[in-house]
């Protein structure tokens, strides 16, 4: 039963199992285990990023394609919900319409980009996605009549999902719409994650891995490599858009910085690499570790910079604004020394 839910892809490592269970329990009971607004924000962000990173891993880890447009698809989903809620008013229907149209738009765009670039060389894809994504990001901030420009959009979602909706108390925690909203995000993320797990462990997923290992041989066996690569791109884009819709429902705000920026793209890359490319569980660990680090590491660096006061260069290097540099170094080192990431390490060290 459990194996069937996990599509036969069990963690295969005792430590990994424990870690994953801990993450699952913490996220499932987050509103009661960690009361407080900030903790709930962090938990929801982790859920959404797990899906986003897992969908990226479908491309990077399983198919061996590097894309820089993943935030663009994420943003499409988010803007879909935002625009639908703005124009159709505050309703569940608007959320559904926005989510569906965002996902469809993302899949169509991915299909177009894929047809142009994957047909020739997989390496074109990385460059073309970078160009298209940056053009879309600029376009979104320019078309401010529609998208709100740099300021983004704020909109209303159904009352049952907002903190204003209260309905009693459980274990000393005030139950309100925010908690319903959290469980919506959590449940949707869990379903999407299991769906991705199903996809990568299906015959289709096997073909993707074959293409990653040797595309020439896969073609020779008789699989249409271009078709499979394009399909993987579309699937991954659609799931990323769904994650974006969840993010928009959770935040009740979209803007270029929260959904489209290149920084988020780098974050996703780091999460995939740190967690482990080519395993869906890597996405879980990568997202959890990274989001926690993002929230708490910067304050730690501030403390360290204060402690290094008076030394020559060190305070500048430890400045909290320079944390991206340390992530970059970590990124390079992990690509060199732990190409299989945390999950790969845990599985091989059984």
């Amino acid at each position, binding site marked *: 039963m459990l194996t069937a839910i996990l599509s036969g892809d069990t963690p295969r490592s005792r430590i990994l199992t424990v870690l994953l269970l801990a993450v699952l329990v913490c996220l499932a009971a987050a509103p009661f285990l960690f009361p407080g607004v900030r903790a709930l924000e962090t938990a929801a962000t982790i859920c959404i990023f797990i899906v986003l990173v897992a969908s990226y891993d479908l491309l990077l880890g399983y198919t061996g394609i590097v894309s820089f447009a993943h935030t663009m698809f994420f943003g499409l989903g988010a803007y879909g919900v935002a625009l639908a809620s703005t124009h159709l008013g505050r309703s569940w229907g608007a959320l559904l319409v926005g989510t569906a149209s965002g996902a469809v738009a993302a899949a169509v765009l991915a299909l177009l980009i894929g047809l142009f670039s994957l047909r020739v060389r997989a390496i074109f894809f*990385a460059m073309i996605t970078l160009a298209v994504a940056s053009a879309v990001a600029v376009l979104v901030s320019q078309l401010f009549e529609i998208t709100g420009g740099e300021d983004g959009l704020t909109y209303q979602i159904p009352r049952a999902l907002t903190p204003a909706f209260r309905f009693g108390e459980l274990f000393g925690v005030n139950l309100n719409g925010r908690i319903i909203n959290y469980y919506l995000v959590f449940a949707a993320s869990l379903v999407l994650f299991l769906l991705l797990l199903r996809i990568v462990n299906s015959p289709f997923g096997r073909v993707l891995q074959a293409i990653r290992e040797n595309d020439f041989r896969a073609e020779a066996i008789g699989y249409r490599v271009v078709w499979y690569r394009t399909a993987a791109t579309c699937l991954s884009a659609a799931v990323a858009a769904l994650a974006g819709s969840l993010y928009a429902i959770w935040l009740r705000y979209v803007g270029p910085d929260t959904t489209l920026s290149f920084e988020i793209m780098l974050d996703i890359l780091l999460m995939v690499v740190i967690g482990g490319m080519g395993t869906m569980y890597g996405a879980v660990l990568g997202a959890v570790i990274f989001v926690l680090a993002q929230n708490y590491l910067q304050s730690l660096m501030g403390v360290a910079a204060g402690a290094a006061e008076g030394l020559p260069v060190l305070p500048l290097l430890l400045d909290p604004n320079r944390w991206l540099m340390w992530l970059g170094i970590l990124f*390079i080192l992990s690509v*060199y020394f732990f190409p299989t990431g945390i999950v790969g390490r845990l599985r091989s060290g059984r």
Partner: protein
Amino acid sequence: MTAAPDHAPTMTRLSAADRLAKAAPFLLVPVLILAGFLAIGTTSSWLTLTVSGLAMGMMIFVMASGLTLVFGLMDVINFGHGAFVSLGAFVGISVLLALPGWTAEPSLALNLAAVLLAIACAMVLTGLSGWAFERVIVRPVYGAHLKQILVTVGGLIVIEQLIHVIWGPDEIFLNRPETLQGAVTFAGAALEKYRILAVVFGLAIFLAMRLILRRTKIGLIVRAGVQNGQMVESLGYRLRLVFIGVFVAGSALAGLGGVMWGLYQEVITAGMGERMMILVFIVVIIGGLGSVEGAFIGALLVGLMQNYIAFLEPKLALISNIGLMTAILMWRPQGMMPVVKAK
């Protein structure tokens, strides 16, 4: 012994259509300039736009040439190339800012000397850091495209952040040297002096590069290496050394492009290289990966297109380059002048 059999190959000329297909990329630039003239209508603004488009194209070409050669030679795709653009700009502009006496003087010779000194410093430094980058970042990941992309993106972030550490987080504004400010009027059109200089400079670099690639032995080895590296190595040339040389030269050219671009924009930021990389990638793709001539034509097309469209329909300027890339890839999926690999 029998006589060799008769062998009379028939050497026919290429048909007109084939020759046209070969020359088509070269014709695109004049065609685009002509189309721009028809669309814009007034000679003076067309002239201004053409010169600025050519200037922009030349600068993009300077940045793109190293990247495309590095790819052609060793199949290495360097996403960190943009970091050298930023680094070159910061080094060069720092040198210029340190020489206020030379740049504020209204003497062309002194101004040019300052600019050339800045360019030399920038090129030496970016060349050295390119060497270090190749050593530390690129070398361990040969032959693995995926890792190359990831690692060089990491390198890009680290260098950008180091620029923040050294020069501070703010953008730096600057003035061009005295005699390079302002414009000259020609046929009723105001042509900025610096843009003309940039066109001349870029053209000189393209011609020098072509000369080196076509007329010298090292150029021959590089071109042969792009076509078939294994064969060159089996003839006894150490292609690795050649590659390091090309990588260093490419980084230095990126630094040069950075200085030129910084002087053009009169403001530099650590993220400028990253933004330029998008245009550079478009240029490299439409030119055909590994082809210097293709990159040159592609850069001119991108520069001209951007300027014409920005004048005609400002909203479309952002996506005009993507449109150009799409159109060219539909016409030639491998880029305009793909390098034929003997594999």
